[in-house]
């Protein structure tokens, strides 16, 4: 049934008479390809669609002003925004904000562009029925006829093939996530992404012929991020582990193949899988089966890796196709993940502070390690809920001045880690270089806690040893990634 077919907000109720094809009748900008992508994304959950005609979309209006309006034949300046609901919402119920919010799945802007009409899209991954794993999300506020709504997800957009191709689209998804989630990053529109790389371009920038990895990293730097680039051929066997570590830290990344780039912002793991355990340390990345990506040529929240088909949304590319990734770190993170892991591993093997001499409870093979970047503020915010295994550890961490960003390497046994619990951690100042002795802030075992009480107060390092008794295990820290 279609309610208000001649109004500015027709509502399609999916029933025996009307469903997806009705969108083609009401939305001339939508083509069969776009409709197919919407169906693949939303078919498991949509019961009702509100069609917001004459929607002025800030991202399309940007590319329209920069490029499309300058052509002899111009497309319309306005878009259509589709709002999706997982229950039937009657026309008079569109003033009931609580009901709208409860059943809201998200929106997709339909642009009058070809070959890709799917514009800015934000849909809730937990409602789609095919997304599972741990992902970064951001919130957006919007309104339908003045009724405010909130939606949480990871931004998606397809390329228009003129102002934006896959490079700009993937960058847009990343940068929109940052500006939606963190107020210190300004909102960037599609043509501005190309402008960010203008000084590093050869020849014309519109229509776009794509970007290099370097230009994409440069665009990130221009808005205040500190990107690191890793090439699989140069990094070697640790490439997938490093990618996992940054994603696990809540840093969305750009994954590049030889001719395409996608946004990666989550991962999925199998914690029950059996692992060969011969090394001293077993990184938690070995449980990882793959990553969750947005490919502008396809649908949101696809799986890239093993068991990808299990959810019905496997990516078109393979993980082994990924030749490089760019991790846009916060600008004040000066210590890369791999440098931290190298010195942390060395410290854990010393006679003075190593596991062998200091922690009978962790002196097992293998010790499972989980590395992630977080803020000192976020680490402290989770102390109370986690308990930290001992009241003295909780109290010391609570009182300890911490840097803005810290690297954390949690320590656990295989069985405990499968239950998402740990026995200790090492904390490192992510705003220092690797060679500085004051970078090491704390090392916590069940039996003792070493704290650099000198660096904590901006003085020379002074390692203080706090004995602990009757420690317990405690939950892993879960911060920037939400479980779906």
């Amino acid at each position, binding site marked *: 049934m279609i309610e208000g077919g001649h109004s500015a907000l027709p509502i399609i109720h999916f029933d025996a008479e009307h469903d997806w094809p009705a969108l083609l009748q009401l939305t001339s900008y939508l083509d069969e390809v776009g409709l197919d992508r919407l169906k693949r994304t939303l078919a498991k959950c949509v019961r009702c669609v509100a069609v917001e005609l004459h929607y002025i979309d800030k991202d399309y209006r940007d590319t329209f002003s920069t490029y499309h309006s300058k052509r002899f034949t111009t497309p319309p300046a306005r878009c259509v925004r589709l709002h999706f609901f997982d229950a039937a919402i009657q026309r008079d119920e569109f003033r009931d904000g609580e009901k709208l919010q409860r059943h809201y799945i998200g929106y997709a802007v339909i642009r009058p562009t070809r070959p890709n009409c799917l514009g800015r899209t934000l849909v809730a991954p937990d409602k789609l029925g095919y997304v599972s794993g741990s992902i970064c999300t951001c919130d957006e506020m919007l309104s339908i006829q003045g009724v405010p709504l909130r939606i949480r997800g990871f931004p998606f957009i397809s390329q228009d093939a003129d102002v934006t191709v896959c490079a700009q689209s993937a960058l847009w998804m990343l940068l929109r996530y940052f500006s939606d989630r963190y107020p210190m990053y300004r909102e960037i529109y599609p043509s501005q992404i190309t402008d960010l790389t203008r000084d590093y371009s050869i020849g014309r920038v519109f229509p776009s012929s794509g*970007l*290099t990895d370097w230009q994409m990293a440069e665009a990130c730097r221009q808005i205040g991020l500190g990107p690191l680039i890793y090439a699989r051929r*140069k990094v070697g066997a640790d490439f997938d582990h490093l990618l996992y570590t940054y994603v696990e830290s809540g840093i969305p990344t750009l994954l590049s193949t030889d001719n395409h780039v996608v946004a990666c912002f989550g991962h999925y793991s199998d914690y029950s899988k059996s692992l060969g355990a011969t090394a001293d340390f077993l990184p938690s990345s070995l449980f990882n089966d793959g990553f969750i990506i947005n490919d502008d040529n396809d649908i949101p929240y696809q799986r890239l890796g093993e068991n990808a088909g299990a959810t019905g949304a496997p990516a078109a590319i393979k993980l082994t196709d990924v030749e490089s990734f760019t991790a846009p770190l916060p600008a004040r993170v000066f210590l*890369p993940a791999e440098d931290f892991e*190298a010195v942390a591993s060395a410290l854990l093997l*010393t006679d003075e502070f190593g596991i062998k001499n200091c922690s009978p409870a962790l002196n097992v093979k293998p010790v499972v390690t989980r590395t992630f970047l977080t803020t000192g503020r976020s680490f402290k915010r989770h102390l109370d809920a986690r308990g930290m295994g001992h009241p003295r550890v909780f*109290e*010391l961490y609570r009182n300890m001045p911490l840097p803005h960003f810290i690297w954390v390497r949690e320590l656990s046994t295989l069985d405990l880690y499968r239950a998402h619990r740990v026995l200790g951690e090492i904390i490192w100042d992510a705003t220092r270089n690797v060679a500085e002795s004051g970078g090491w802030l704390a090392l916590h075992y069940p039996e003792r806690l070493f704290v650099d009480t000198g660096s904590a107060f901006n003085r020379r390092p*002074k*390692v203080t040893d706090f004995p602990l008794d009757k420690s317990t295990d405690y939950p892993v820290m879960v911060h920037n990634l939400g479980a779906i």
Partner: protein
Amino acid sequence: MSETAELVLVPEQEKVSETKFKTASEFDAFWQRLLRGVKPQLDTLAAARRASEEDAKRRHIG
């Protein structure tokens, strides 16, 4: 108490803890020893990052 005074993280710190190195130079010596051991690995990692950046200038995606 001024900000230059000796500060503690928890009130009972002096009673329940001990300083691991008696002097700062002892700690420095430990640290330099640790760094010497890990330096070849850090050099390799830094070289991989530099090579990745060079690679990034060539990989054109569109």
